[in-house]
């Protein structure tokens, strides 16, 4: 009896299904997330998993593969070219990121000074970042031409060298040349984002330090650097990630040559997977990049955590 009396009342309280789908917060959230989630699941999460699966198969272009366990990784670990590309990638990432950070920070400090035409100079600095990488890489290709390089020509005219430099034909020259092009392209990004961080540092801190007799180095070390650490961590994570997975610059300038000296893991996986058709092996190379990327993310994440802990902040 009491049950019967209660049941209709409970049903009355609940709005009809259609109404709930339109007003319930969780359902609304679901509808709003649907387009983005569809894209990210279909074209990001699914391929990411598929890539890891492919690396355990012997798939070829146009032929689904069968599970072969860790055979691809086994094969790669015996392949000296693979280890060469790992070495190249680490060298490329370490050298380019370090120099990008140093030059970028220096440029940011310079741009933070009081300058005439400040706004225009800042706008100009960012141009290398705006222009598509491939298009500026072609310009570098031409600048590094073995015969008609303007750099060689200028150095010869200055009497510094006697022959044209073979920028992209010699293994080590080629490595330094692509690293230079990468630095050239990455410095503006680092500089402008760090500049944005610098502008949030209150000038009164510097004034107080100056009154206390701090030298310019001390002002940088004990004011600028600690206040900038969080943004440095984020910027450098991005910079390391994008340098590590770089493809465009190498592909346009050297295609991995000479004798694989500039092959990065990304270009190497393209060569094995798309050009030679060994999808499984290519996926294994691409998957091998993931641990390195996770490491880079973790390092910067813990860098940030330490920072917050030192300043006694909660997580925001």
């Amino acid at each position, binding site marked *: 009896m009491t049950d019967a009396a209660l049941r209709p009342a409970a049903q009355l309280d609940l709005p009809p299904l259609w109404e709930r789908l339109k007003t319930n917060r969780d359902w609304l959230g679901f509808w709003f997330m649907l*387009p983005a989630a569809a894209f990210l699941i279909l074209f990001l999460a699914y391929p990411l998993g598929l890539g890891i699966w492919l690396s355990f198969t012997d798939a070829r272009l146009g032929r689904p593969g069968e599970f072969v366990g860790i055979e691809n990784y086994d094969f790669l670990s015996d392949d000296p070219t693979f280890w060469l590309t790992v070495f190249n990638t680490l060298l490329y990432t370490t050298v380019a990121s370090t120099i990008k950070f140093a030059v970028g920070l220096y440029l940011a400090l310079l741009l933070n000074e009081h300058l005439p035409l400040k706004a225009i100079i800042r706008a100009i600095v960012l141009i290398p970042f705006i222009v*598509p990488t491939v298009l500026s890489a072609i310009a570098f290709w031409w600048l590094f031409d073995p015969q008609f390089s303007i750099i060689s020509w200028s150095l010869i005219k200055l009497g510094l060298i006697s022959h044209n430099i073979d920028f992209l034909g010699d293994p080590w020259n080629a490595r330094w040349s692509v690293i230079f092009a990468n630095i050239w392209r990455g410095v503006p990004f680092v500089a402008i984002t760090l500049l944005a961080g610098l502008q949030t540092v209150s000038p009164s801190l510097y004034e107080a330090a100056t009154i206390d007799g701090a030298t310019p180095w001390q002002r940088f070390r004990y004011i600028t650097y600690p206040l900038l650490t969080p943004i440095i961590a984020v910027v450098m994570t991005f910079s390391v990630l994008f340098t590590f997975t770089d493809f465009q610059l190498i592909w346009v300038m050297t295609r991995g040559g000479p004798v694989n000296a500039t092959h990065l893991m990304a270009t190497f996986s393209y060569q094995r997977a798309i050009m030679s058709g060994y999808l499984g092996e290519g996926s294994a190379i691409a998957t091998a990049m993931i641990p390195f990327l996770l490491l880079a993310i973790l390092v910067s994440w813990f860098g940030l955590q330490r920072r917050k802990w030192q300043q006694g902040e909660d997580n925001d």
Partner: protein
Amino acid sequence: MTDALAKRASHPKRIFADTSVDHSEGMSYLESVPRRLVTLYLPLGLILLVLLFPFYWMALTAIKPDNQLLDLETYSPFWTWNPTLKHVEKLLFETDYPVWLWNTMLVAVCATALSIIASVLAAYAIVRLRYKGARWVGGAIFLAYLVPPSILFIPLSTVVYQYGLFDTPFALILTYPTILIPFSTWLLMGYFKTIPYELEECALIDGASRWQILVRIVLPLAVPGLISAFIFCFTLCWNEFIYALTFISSTQYKTVPVAIVTALVDGDIYRWGSLMAGAMIGSLPLVILYAFFVEHYVSAMTGAVKE
């Protein structure tokens, strides 16, 4: 520091003059002009020179006649007195360059539009609807931003093939949003957070639905954020290379960056003049867009990093 003070003390007149100086300059008045020349203008000038020289060289090569390009001795290589539009003309009328430009534009506009719509909805839901697990979804989207295309292109090429999109513009229009959505959602979340809650509460009391609030209140207030997201996404699309290289094989669907390195480089005779003209014309739309929206651009770049 101390010698700066000593210098000031030895020039009492300058101390007097300095007091009238606008203090918005900060402490730069403490430094003498020659000192600034060496520590500031010289390194800045050098860096700017290195950053801009490739563009100068690109532009110069694009307008130099062929014989001057390959003869560095008779003509000064840093300048030309007989500029020519021959390379540009050749590029526009003898190759498919206009088609490639159109493809790039089409793909960039469609992918950007799709991404912005999806991101606006997602960002609003995460920031303001705060459904169950919204925080986790926000974190997952940031992680998605960190997944680079270079580890996705192999499995994506098989996916694109399975869906029957291979070698059509849709392969690019539908895959680019995976790069753009995480970025622009993250950016827009930051913008939506700055819009006062009270406005939405008022509208809710007046009986507006969530959709009406989004369209009539939040979006008009977030226009700067939308512009930032739009330009940045557009630039990313224009810049994208590895997907376009892998998923497109017929020349008529190629985008400018891919077409330039695959179709324009014929054999061993590099057509440097046309190549450079192609690179320059391919960058111009972005540079012009950038010139108009510098502030939005910078705020997009720094905003995405800061959040």
